[in-house]
């Protein structure tokens, strides 16, 4: 695939979507040499992956880098996929492993400020009186949820993001993280309890 022959993703994704290929069919076609199938998979998963990695890191730049790396792995290691598991399980596993590796590297670098997290458009000042209460609450919640999320241990954070943001099933999370089902349930429960404790403390501080 040379630069001149790289197809327009918008046009082809519609064709692929219209034909309603499953993810597993697309990866199989890609393994057979059909690079348009790769583009469709990119279009399907890029936003899902950025939501996963951004909530994981709290930093947009790092999150996009990891998504790029994940999609490159998909391109260079397509033959590693075997049709015994769902494609989504496989790609989330790659993204999760790359995210953990990147996080280990980040620990050696200076920490970024919350204001550099890439939550553009967030209101850091006192809420505007013209806004409805619901709007203020949601805005406040996103920032505080992200902050609270960053206090979670890595394995808790991964599990709760996959469950409550990516809305994956317990079984799929178990396959992605390669841990027993009971462990997944326990991690999700403890993550949620820790988040509610953290956010309750924040709310109480805000009221005083």
């Amino acid at each position, binding site marked *: *695939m*040379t*630069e001149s022959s*790289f197809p327009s*993703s918008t046009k082809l994704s519609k064709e692929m979507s219209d034909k309603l290929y499953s993810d597993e069919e697309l990866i199989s076609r890609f393994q057979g040499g059909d690079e348009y199938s790769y583009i469709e998979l*990119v279009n399907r998963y*890029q*936003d899902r992956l*950025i*939501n996963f990695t*951004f*909530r994981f890191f709290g930093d*947009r730049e790092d999150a*996009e880098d990891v*998504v*790029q790396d994940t*999609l*490159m792995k998909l*391109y*260079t290691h397509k033959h590693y996929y075997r049709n015994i598991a769902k494609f989504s399980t496989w790609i989330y596993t790659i993204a999760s492993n790359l995210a953990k590796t990147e996080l280990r590297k980040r620990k050696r670098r200076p920490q970024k400020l919350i204001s550099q997290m890439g939550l553009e458009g967030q209101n850091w000042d006192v809420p505007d009186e013209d806004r409805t209460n619901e709007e203020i609450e*949601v805005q406040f*919640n*996103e920032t505080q*949820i992200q902050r609270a999320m960053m206090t979670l241990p890595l394995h808790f954070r991964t599990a*709760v993001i996959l469950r*409550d*943001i990516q*809305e994956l099933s*317990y079984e799929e999370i178990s396959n992605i993280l390669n841990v027993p089902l009971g462990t997944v*349930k*326990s991690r*999700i*429960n403890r993550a*949620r*309890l820790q*988040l*509610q*404790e953290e*956010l*309750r403390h924040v709310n109480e501080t805000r009221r005083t």
Partner: protein
Amino acid sequence: MNCYKFRDSISLHIDKELSIKDINRFNHHLETCSSCRVMFQGTLDVVSSMKKLPSLTVSTDFGNRLQNRIIREQSRKETNKRRIAPVESLGLKPRYAVASVAALVAILFISVSFFTGGNDNFPAIGDTPSLLTREVIPQEEDPFPQSHSPASSLAAGSRADSSSNQLPIIATHPQIPENQIRQVSGK
């Protein structure tokens, strides 16, 4: 159901994973314990808030950056193919070619080492009782009596007319003066 068990069941209740029996116990405890009630409501709020988080999209240049990476990857593969081609044209796979060359070098080295065993500069195997040093000690006088035994000829030191060995055996020769041994064996 106690508070400990209740706490462990909160997520299962939210995700509808509890049995009917456990749901009843859960609800009963919920009615009777205010602190657990606060914890349960707080957890519900957290889960609800996370589901309302705005969905992100990749940046506008994400596709271009990915495309550029793919093109670079393809160029790299092409370059590697061109490097490997001459080796493969000989009917060899690169890794086998490297292994073959390494094996050949090892065989040559061992052969040279083996066949130079009779060299004057090296002691023959079995002839040398022990060697403390390979240093050649220049001597003005020949302190050792001439002998036809290989051991003594080795102990003779550096002599121009020695055809067998130029490395002195010092430590085991009974006639070697003590000070001579210390001089040579220590470094």
